């Protein structure tokens, strides 16, 4: 049989339903008229003929229905009929519909929003071609600890040469330049890149070209701009190629502009913020000779087809051996030995670098929003069940009149789908609003190289939720409806009897589930709140209020002599000290909370146990009254003075934890340590002061050892971050700081000028965000649970009015009735809380380092949530209980 013609006929029938109907009418009428004509011809009177014709023809409507069925359009007709009926049913109980649709919309909307974030951040491709074949290669120095380092500059070419697993290997290094010559001077983040890096990443410039391999050698002053810089500083003009910009006051020729979508390094990567321009790597002679040092270069590589990560890491071990030989050679050239120095290499997919740190957070958000949806669904299922109870008679009548069970099931399914679709449609609106609210509050560390939007993937996700919810909501009431036979349900609903026990139990079960899920969410949120509280209460080790900081990097070519640098900072400090409102001025190579240098050190007479690795500490070189400005307390000894310079004994200030660790129970003042290992040829430094511990990483970071050295004592003059403590709001002295710096050098770029308060709040932004989202979910869950408890009790009281009336007539007092209702509420709540606590105990441990100084089993949180749930449950039962107590026995007994 021709399936095409069947489809065609069906399609025609669908398209021209109404035409088909009229044609069918006309055809049948013709038949009847022709038949009647023949009857008249055979002698029947014309008045009688038509009647006879109709009777002999049979039931016209049934013929039509069979005709429709033959054409395959009957199903659609019935479906439309079901849909109309479902819409009428929903219209008939607007209260139920509003609550159900709104509940679903909240659940679906929240899920849509969170999924749109997860989709954009975790699931979308990186903005590089075939990014799943890109890896980052790192070097592992077992001496310095297990975590991998970036790569030493000269090793890039070794990796390129020695590997067998990569198609291409490129390298880059994060750098900053003073950008001037167009508008206000600015400090820009740049990358020095190998000429093939863009090729490795599979990206092409929007305008112009990439670097040639010849330009990779030092001395080629060419630059590729980012789209953003091009727009900001050059208004996106097309005739950009060949123009020059000044980087560290040297002219660089623009050879290209990258497309808008291109970002490097990607947000989330350890290499920091996105670069605004790119220059050739240009490894200098000195950098090439510095073998086995400066592990500051990032290496990105594209895998050969069919190569697995395991093969890559196996091959990299051989590469590392080759690299180690170059280290040994360099050491022997310097008449030293490598000793038992070891080197390893490891590759990690680029995607893991970008999304790895975020994954726990996003899965947690997705999990908690899933719980919200579950709670919402249970709530609606509960409502549906109460309504099903009210519709039992309808079902029984329909079954008794011969409606098929399948027909009833379909009716319920259509109702469920309609309800879910309404919830989904409104949910999309809620989701859109919620997504915008999320995006606006999202911390900057979340990678966003794709716009977070409700794209087709998100819509598909929402559609899936709606379908599942709709089918479940359709199937559940029909199971309940078909569970009892028409006879008994007609009887049970007949007269004022209390409800079937089974049904009560199912509804109680719903509330238990709802309470349990809310408890899990609330405990999760509670633990996050407690962690956040702990983080905020963490002593950062310094006093951030009224401290303003700024980075002032001096261009190395203009300030090539150390004296120039020293003189600049001395003059700047003096000018600032004389500024009214400024109390103290200092500088440091690193600021608290922002990480920084770590340095290997060895205390005098320290004997390392074999294989213990190097001792590392944060190290800051400080200038002026830095410690006083930051309010880092001096515990013993003294601060540095102007006399701590190269001519005196080398002075050092150490943090309290370092002193305690290496000189426990002794006076650390006067003790000595040196940089590197015991064999390193570096001078001993004498401890002159002990200061308090400072959080060098974010507030929730483990406190690390710290050493401070005076600027004047150093053999070099690094750039400094300037810090000033003021009497007034720090923002108000910003202009003075800028004026002082520009008074010395008008081209100077000041970067990161911000109060320390702001630095602190930035370091807690991610936690605040998590807390806000999970907290609002928890509140939503609690509200839904309260609504659920209320609805069940109210319904139960209404259903039991008759029973309560009997009890009161038999002498029960208001207190007894109150106890009846409250007891019912508390029973389900307590059972729910028990299950919730068990569930929470199982789940909270996955929160891992989202928690801070709080155990996943933190008793105060658990107890608090328990009490909260109990009071909410009592509050939710207040109205139904009052209604129950006011039952008038006489009215109730007549009540049906």
């Amino acid at each position, binding site marked *: 049989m021709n399936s095409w013609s069947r489809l065609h006929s069906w399609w025609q029938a669908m398209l021209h339903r109404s035409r088909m109907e009229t*044609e069918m009418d006309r055809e049948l009428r013709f038949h009847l008229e022709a038949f009647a004509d023949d009857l008249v011809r055979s002698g029947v009177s014309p008045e009688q003929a038509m009647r006879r014709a109709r009777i002999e023809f049979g039931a016209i409507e049934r013929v039509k229905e069979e005709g429709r069925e033959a054409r395959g359009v009957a199903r659609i007709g019935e479906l439309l009929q079901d849909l109309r009926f479902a819409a009428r049913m929903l219209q008939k109980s607007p209260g139920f519909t509003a609550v159900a649709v709104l509940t679903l919309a909240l659940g679906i909307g929240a899920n849509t929003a969170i999924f749109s974030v997860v989709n954009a951040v975790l699931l979308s491709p990186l903005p590089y071609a075939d990014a799943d074949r890109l890896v980052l290669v790192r070097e592992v120095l077992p001496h310095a600890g297990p975590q991998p380092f970036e790569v030493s500059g000269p090793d890039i070419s070794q990796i390129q040469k020695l590997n067998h697993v990569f198609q291409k290997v490129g390298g880059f290094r994060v750098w900053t330049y003073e950008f001037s010559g167009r508008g206000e001077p600015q400090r820009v983040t740049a990358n020095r890149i190998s000429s093939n890096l863009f090729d490795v990443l599979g990206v092409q410039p929007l305008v112009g070209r990439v670097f040639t391999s010849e330009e990779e050698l030092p001395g080629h002053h060419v630059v590729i701009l980012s789209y953003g810089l091009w727009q900001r500083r050059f208004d996106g003009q097309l005739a950009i190629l060949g123009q020059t910009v000044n980087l560290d006051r040297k002219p660089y020729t623009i050879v290209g502009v990258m497309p808008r979508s291109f970002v490097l390094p990607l947000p989330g990567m350890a290499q920091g913020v996105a670069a605004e321009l790119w220059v050739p790597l240009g490894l200098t002679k000195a950098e090439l000779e510095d073998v086995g040092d400066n592990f500051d270069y990032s290496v990105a590589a594209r895998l050969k087809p069919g190569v697995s990560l395991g093969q890559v890491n196996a091959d990299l071990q051989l590469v590392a051996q080759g690299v180690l030989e170059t280290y040994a050679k360099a050491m022997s050239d310097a008449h030293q030995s490598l000793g038992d120095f070891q080197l390893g290499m490891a590759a990690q997919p680029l995607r893991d670098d970008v999304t790895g740190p975020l994954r726990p957070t996003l899965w947690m958000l997705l999990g908690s929003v899933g719980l919200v949806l579950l709670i919402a669904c249970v709530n609606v299922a509960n409502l549906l069940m109460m309504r099903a109870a009210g519709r039992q008679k309808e079902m029984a009548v329909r079954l008794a009149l011969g409606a098929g069970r399948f027909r009833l099931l379909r009716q319920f399914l259509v109702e469920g789908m309609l309800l879910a679709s309404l919830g989904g449609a409104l949910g999309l609106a809620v989701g859109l609003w919620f997504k915008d609210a999320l995006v606006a509050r999202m911390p900057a560390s979340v990678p966003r190289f794709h716009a977070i939007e409700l794209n087709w993937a998100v819509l598909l996700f929402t559609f899936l939720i709606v379908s599942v919810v709709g089918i479940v909501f359709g199937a559940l009431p029909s199971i309940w409806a078909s569970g009892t036979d028409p006879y008994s349900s007609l009887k049970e609903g007949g007269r004022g009897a209390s409800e079937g026990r089974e049904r009560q139990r199912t509804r109680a079960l719903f509330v238990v589930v709802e309470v349990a899920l809310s408890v899990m969410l609330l405990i999760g949120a509670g633990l996050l709140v407690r962690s956040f509280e702990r983080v905020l209460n963490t002593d950062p080790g310094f006093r951030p209020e009224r401290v303003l900081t700024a980075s002032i990097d001096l261009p190395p070519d203009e300030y090539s002599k150390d004296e120039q640098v020293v003189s600049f900072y001395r003059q700047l400090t003096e000018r600032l000290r004389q500024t009214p409102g400024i109390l103290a001025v200092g500088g440091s190579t690193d600021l608290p909370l922002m990480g920084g240098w770590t340095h290997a050190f060895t205390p005098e007479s320290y004997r390392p146990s074999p294989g213990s690795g190097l001792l590392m500490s944060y190290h800051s070189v400080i200038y002026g009254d830095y410690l006083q400005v930051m309010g880092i307390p001096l515990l013993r000894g003294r601060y540095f003075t102007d006399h701590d310079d190269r001519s005196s004994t080398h002075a050092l200030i150490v943090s309290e934890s370092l002193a305690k660790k290496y000189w426990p129970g002794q006076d650390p003042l006067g003790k000595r340590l040196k940089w590197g290992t015991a064999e390193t040829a570096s001078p001993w430094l004498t401890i002159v002061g002990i200061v308090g511990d400072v959080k060098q990483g974010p507030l929730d970071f483990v406190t690390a050892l710290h050493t401070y050295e005076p600027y004047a004592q150093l053999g070099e003059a690094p750039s400094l971050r300037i810090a000033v403590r003021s009497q007034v709001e720090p923002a108000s002295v910003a202009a003075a700081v800028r004026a002082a710096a520009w008074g010395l050098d008008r081209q100077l770029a000041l970067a990161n000028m911000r109060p320390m308060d702001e630095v602190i709040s930035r370091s807690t932004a991610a936690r605040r965000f998590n807390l806000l989202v999970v907290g609002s979910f928890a509140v939503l869950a609690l509200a839904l649970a309260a609504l659920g408890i209320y609805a069940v009790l109210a319904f139960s009281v209404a259903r039991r009015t008759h029973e309560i009336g009997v009890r009161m007539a038999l002498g029960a007092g208001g207190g007894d009735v109150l106890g009846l209702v409250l007891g019912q509420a508390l029973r389900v709540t307590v059972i729910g809380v028990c299950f919730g606590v068990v569930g929470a105990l199982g789940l909270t441990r996955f929160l891992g380092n989202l928690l801070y100084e709080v155990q996943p089993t933190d008793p105060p949180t658990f107890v608090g949530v328990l009490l909260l749930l109990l009071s909410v449950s009592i509050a939710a039962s207040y109205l139904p209980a009052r209604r129950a107590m006011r039952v008038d026995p006489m009215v109730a007994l007549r009540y049906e």
Partner: protein
Amino acid sequence: MDKQLDLLQGTLDMLILKAVSLGPLHGYGILLRIQQISKDRLEIQQGSLYPALYRLEHQGWIASEWGESENKRKAKYYTLTAAGKGRLQAETDNWNSMADVIRGILGTKPEEV
């Protein structure tokens, strides 16, 4: 008039195809033609004719077109399609061989077993 026979299950489609194969007919005409050929010995429920017609059209064995009847009324005329011609042939063959077999079985005498 001879006693009318009830239509065997599933044979109406075949009869419609045969009737239409003799020339284009409207629904009432098909009814008349089958009665005429069968010399009024077959009783066809008028109501069952149309669902059968729609089914056959849906399956692509007959096609329909609006035309004018003998007494100038608009009527829907059915014709046999190429596919319907093949179908009719197949059904006829099938019916004949089936009738042979059945007749053979029914005509069997005890001594032939």
